[in-house]
């Protein structure tokens, strides 16, 4: 099954299960979604539950908040992360705060989904990542799906949970293949150990997990070490217990993310490690991230500006050699 099909399946099953689940967004209905995530659903559930909206992101999220107040369970799709900026007032001032400000009188069982990240030459207004911003907002649960099985289970969880959830996808993952294990006992708030190892903990999420895994053979060979690879899965709350156990074992942490390095999401993880795991660290942490520039259109420039398996390998090897990993 493809990643986008797993998302589709999660939507399909929750919509079948609960008549209050509705999906809204640009081209999610008749068109089937610009990344085909909602394909076929309108035929099953009708236009009243697959709501094609105008190009008005502030309203997409703002209406979803109101639908949730009115008793529905809306799943809003924003076509690309950059457009979500138009809805930041609704996401941060409303979606994240109404439950708290009303002392729990208002409950918002809703999800906002969007793909983000550098795809292929979509240029600066279509290539950004916003977990850095949204995972820092109290009141939001922020999940990031890096694989097919997690995408399915986590999206179902997000829809069924009675709190606002930001569900982040990556444009280059939609056609990723994998299995959905219906019987898997998955806690979507727990980090996933993608590969066990004992010398270095590499923390990542979304598409970078794949790039890290591609880099692993070369890294392990060149440094003669074994790496533990952790997919955070939930960006807020963070499963620090899993990180702690790993770091106690390895004493070394590398954070890999695609977004711009300065102030990137990984700063929180590395900062946590420095504060809370200081005495376990045998080497300085390493952050591998996108460069601090808007994403350029040209393919070579674009690729040079973000981590790739090769650049991940090179940076970790250089760091390992310098600090004796």
């Amino acid at each position: 099954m493809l990643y986008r099909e797993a998302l589709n399946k999660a939507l399909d099953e929750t919509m079948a299960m609960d008549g209050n689940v509705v999906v809204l967004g640009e081209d999610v209905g008749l068109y089937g979604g610009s990344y085909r995530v909602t394909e076929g659903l309108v035929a099953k559930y009708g236009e009243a539950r697959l709501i094609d909206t105008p190009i008005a992101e502030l309203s997409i999220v703002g209406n979803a908040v109101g639908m949730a107040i009115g008793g529905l369970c809306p799943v809003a799709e924003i076509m690309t992360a950059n457009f979500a900026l138009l809805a930041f007032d609704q996401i941060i001032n409303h979606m994240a705060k109404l439950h708290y400000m009303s002392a729990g009188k208002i409950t918002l069982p809703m999800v906002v989904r969007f793909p983000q990240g550098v795809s292929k030459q979509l240029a600066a207004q279509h290539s950004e990542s916003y977990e850095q911003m949204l995972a820092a907002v109290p009141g939001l649960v922020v999940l990031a799906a890096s694989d097919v099985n997690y995408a399915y289970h986590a999206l179902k969880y997000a829809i069924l949970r009675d709190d606002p959830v930001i569900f982040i996808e990556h444009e280059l993952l939609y056609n990723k293949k994998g299995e959905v294990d219906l019987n898997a006992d998955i806690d979507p708030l727990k980090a996933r150990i993608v590969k066990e190892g004992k010398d270095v903990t590499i923390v990542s999420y979304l598409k970078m997990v794949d790039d890290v895994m591609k880099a692993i053979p070369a890294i392990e060979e060149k440094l003669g070490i074994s790496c533990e690879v952790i997919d955070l899965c939930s960006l807020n709350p963070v499963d620090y217990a899993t990180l702690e156990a790993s770091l106690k074992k390895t004493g070394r942490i590398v954070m890999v993310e695609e977004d711009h390095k300065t102030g990137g999401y990984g700063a929180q993880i590395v900062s946590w490690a420095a504060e809370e795991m200081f005495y376990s660290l045998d080497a300085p942490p390493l952050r591998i991230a996108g460069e601090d520039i808007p994403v350029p259109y040209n393919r070579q420039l674009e690729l040079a500006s973000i981590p790739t398996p090769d650049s991940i390998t090179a940076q970790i090897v250089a760091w390992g050699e310098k600090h004796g990993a």
Partner: protein
Amino acid sequence: MKPDKLTAEEIYYLMVLGRQFEYAAKEHYMQGEISGFLHLDIGQEALSVAAMKAFEKGDVFSTYREHVMAMARGIEPKAVMAELFGKATGVSEGKGGSMHLFDPSHFFYGGDAIVGGHIPNAVGCAYARKFQGDLSGVMVVFGDGATNGGAFFESLNIASAQKLPLLFLCENNQYAIGTKITRVAPFETQSKKADPYMRTVDVDGMDALAVYEAVREAQHYIEEGHGPVFVEAMTCRYEGHSISDANTYRSEQEMTLCKQKDPIAKLKAQLLSEFGTTQAHIEALEAKARSAVDEAVAFASQSPEPPLEARFDHLFEEGGDHAL
């Protein structure tokens, strides 16, 4: 449809209550028991109260200037005053304050401090109601200043395209803080903006009976499935924008003209002449309002502060363990 006598008298009671409440809030702000922003509704009570009474069946979304509406909606004055005092007994348990009163049991969903931010929420709620086959309607109240923002405009378009059961109620007091609406919009009457999208109605916001009638009719139209309506009421606030605004941008003459149309005096006269309410009954209503306010203040000041740990409550509804 005009209100019947009982309703008209209740509106009068609530308007007096509202005004007394606001003066009391002002007093206790000055004494330091209330803090933050405090937006008083004095002068606008006809609108706030009569619209709520006329719209009893539906859901309401409002702004930061909502104490009087919240009470007209049925929320206890005590619970509102205690919220202003930041107490545990406040309608939002001291977490929200003056600008964030919520009570879904009275179909009142705020209390929003982002100008225009609640309008898309009301649109979404109207969608939910239509989806549920309920056409009682949703009413969203906002100021003239909010009609210049993207959230408002997107909402006109969506509500119209989807024929949603939504009543847009514009409180046009002509000012957004110190900026006169005509300096930043091309019209005096903001209903012009809604004209292409839906039925629009202009009403005198200083006349409670007229407001009641206009809102009742609008709700009726909505219930019949015709889609959204825009009602605009010209009104006037007597105080500054918030308690910290010195109100220096309006001339004395402008203020005098504005106060001459006092909505409480007007309704009183109408009760006496058109509804046969006696002077004695009016005085009784006024006394009842005063004591409700006194009680609210006493309740608020005697109520406990929320415990410090309460600040960690209500961040999330649940850990998600029910799911799947």
